[in-house]
Structure formats: structure tokens, C-alpha cells
């Protein structure tokens, strides 16, 4: 039950893209077509889960025992960059069809702030390993959901009339704003669910 509340919180209430403003560059950049958006979303979900687990181990079994927590940023980004390379090589060898669909998005993911953001958030919130894992998975699902819905909306732009000045990124941002407003409606759901489980 605890994890259901966590899931609703991470996917809907505190959606990583629309409420926490993480990972907005790919959100704007690769959301013009449904397939690319789905590919990007899946790649993010995949890497985010692995990256959060590995950085959690690095933080608790390497940085803290050595008292070099201030190097967190450098170590995390290097770990994530290395991980993305590894994932790319493994997928290429082991699961070629998956590599073909996710391949082009993987290099972009190193500089996706959602990945590093979730890894750092787990440390700052002092989450345990299982909680971090679930938090990463649900955040990734939230990312996937938001980018797929957004791509669906954006595909409609092609057949609708948009004033010249608003075209492209501008209207995309306004649309994202309206989507964020819709997601804003979920605020409070997690609280009431929590209260419900308490009783």
C-alpha cells in the first residue's frame, strides 16, 4: 500500500517533468513524433532505474565510508556516463531489436537532468535502497506517461491552425503549461490516500 501511494505521488502528483521541472530538454526536443517519444521515455525509464541503484551503492559504500561526499556530483555523472555506454554495448550484443529502437536516444540520456536529478534526490531524501528503486521506477513511468501524452497532443498541431509567432517550441511550452495545470489537479490525492490507509 505504501508503494501505491509512492507510485501515485511520483507519477501524477509530483510528476518529474511537469511538477519538478526535470528533463525538459528531451521533453521539448524529441516529442514531435509518437514513436520517438515512446522510445525516449522507455530509454529514460530503463537507464533511470539502473543509474539510481548504482549511484545509491556508490554513495553508501564508497563516498560515505571514504568521507568524500563533496565529490558526489563528479562521481555520479561519471558513473551515469559509463553506465549509459555499458547499456548501449550490452543492448547492441544481446537484444538487437531493443537496441535498434532505443539506440539513438541512449547517448542523449547522459545529459538528461532527470537521471542525475532522481539519483541526487534519492540521496538528499535519505531513501533506503528499495525506496530508491521504486522511486526511480515510478519517476521513469511518470516521465514516459507525460512525454507520450505530450507527443499525442503535439501530433495534432500539424493539422491545426497556429499563429506564426506561436509556432513550434512556443506553442509546445504553452501546451506543456496546460498539461501541468491538468496534473496540478492531482495535488492532494496522495495525502487523502495516505489518510485512508492509516484508518
Amino acid at each position, binding site marked *: 500500500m505504501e508503494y501505491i501511494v509512492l507510485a501515485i505521488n511520483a507519477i501524477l502528483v509530483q510528476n518529474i517533468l*511537469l*511538477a*519538478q*521541472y*526535470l*528533463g*525538459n*530538454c528531451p*521533453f*521539448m*526536443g524529441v516529442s514531435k513524433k509518437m514513436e520517438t517519444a515512446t522510445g525516449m521515455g522507455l530509454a529514460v525509464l530503463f537507464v533511470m532505474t539502473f543509474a539510481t541503484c548504482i549511484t545509491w551503492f556508490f554513495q553508501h559504500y564508497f563516498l560515505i565510508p571514504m568521507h568524500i561526499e*563533496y*565529490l*558526489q*556530483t*563528479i562521481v*555520479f*555523472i*561519471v558513473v551515469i*556516463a559509463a553506465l549509459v555506454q555499458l547499456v548501449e554495448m550490452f543492448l547492441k550484443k544481446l537484444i538487437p531489436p531493443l537496441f535498434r529502437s532505443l539506440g539513438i536516444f541512449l*547517448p542523449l540520456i*547522459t*545529459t*538528461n*537532468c532527470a*537521471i*542525475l*536529478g532522481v539519483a*541526487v*534526490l534519492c540521496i*538528499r531524501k535519505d531513501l533506503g535502497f528499495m525506496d530508491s528503486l521504486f522511486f526511480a521506477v515510478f519517476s521513469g513511468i511518470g516521465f514516459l506517461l507525460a512525454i507520450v501524452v505530450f507527443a499525442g497532443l503535439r501530433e495534432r498541431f500539424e493539422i491545426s491552425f497556429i*499563429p*506564426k*509567432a*506561436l*509556432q513550434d*517550441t*512556443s*506553442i*509546445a*511550452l*504553452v*501546451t*506543456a*503549461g*496546460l498539461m*501541468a*495545470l491538468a496534473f*496540478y489537479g492531482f495535488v492532494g490525492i496522495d495525502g487523502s490516500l495516505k489518510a485512508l490507509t492509516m484508518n
Partner: protein
Amino acid sequence: MVKAKSISKEFFKGFWEILPPFRLVLGLCPMLAVTKYVENGLGMGIATTFVLFFSNIIISSIKSVIPKKVRIASYIVIIATFVVIVELVMQAFFYSLFEKLGIFIPLIVVNCIILGRAEAFASKNPIHLSAADGLGIGLGFTMSLFLISAIREILGAGTFLGMHIMWGSYEPFAFMIEAPGAFICLGLLLAMMNLVPTKLNGAN
């Protein structure tokens, strides 16, 4: 068309020609996240400018020794080093700002503007031009952050740098300081920026 590259040109292009994030749609996350208040926006802008300026200089000066295959990883490590410096300095001297910016200080590492400039400019150009480019883009970014945070703070909270500047009966438009307001504010500003050249061309 080959244009002569001069320091002043590389410096000033960051203010209009490729002003981030309007002309160069990169670095959106800090642009949306830390522009609730002018203080946060300015702090973020200055921190980013610092990192951009120094990483451009370092990358430009060692570009010939970095192997091509691992260049992106090398850039990220160089950038991360400066981000850690900023993090430690802010923690020591500007603690309240450090608390407010929170997770977005380590996230300067993955600000695509910095890596983008490293890849597109510093890795191909001499040191003095890269320094001018870094400083110009950084200040342009700071300017945009300042503009958006000023609009959001004045409309959303009725204050500017924490001082009340609206009339007494002004009801703060709280929508502006929430997440949806950030997206819509940036989108409309971008539309206005698009409108300017159209109007100028129309007048000619």
C-alpha cells in the same frame, strides 16, 4: 559566407542572435525551476556563467590532447569539476541561496547549454574566442533568467527581490509561481521574441 571572428562578435551574439533559451532552446530545466524569485534566478545565472566561462577556457586550451572518442566524457568531467567548485563556494558563502536552489546546483553539470557550447564552440576555436563566447552566452542566459524571474515574481507574488512593489490591494496571481505558470510564461515570451523580427521585416 565566411565571417571574421572577433572577440566582441562572439561576446555579443549571446545577447540576441543565439540568446539562450529563446534562440537556442536548451537549458530549459533551470529556466523553469529556479525562476520563482529574482534572487534565485540571478544566483543560478551567475553560477552557470562561472561554470560556462571556465569550462570553455579549459576545454579550448586542452582540445588538442583530448582523444576524439572520449571527448564528451572528458568535457563532462571538466564541467563537473567547476560545478563542484561552485557548489562548495555557495555552501560556504551564500548558504540561504544554496538551500533555495537545492538540487539544481549539481544539475548545472547536465545543463545542455554548457555541454553544447563545449562541443559546438570551445572544441573548435582558440582560447580568447571561447572565453568571450562562454561569458556572452552565460550573461545572456543570466539576462533571460532575470527577465522571466522578474515577470513571475512581480505577477505571482507582487514583490521584486523580496520588496513589495505592487499597490496595496494587489492580489498576487499565484498561478505564475506554480509549475504551469512557468511553462506558459516562457512560451508566451518566446512567441513575443518571434514576433519582433516579423514586425521589423514588415516595416521595411
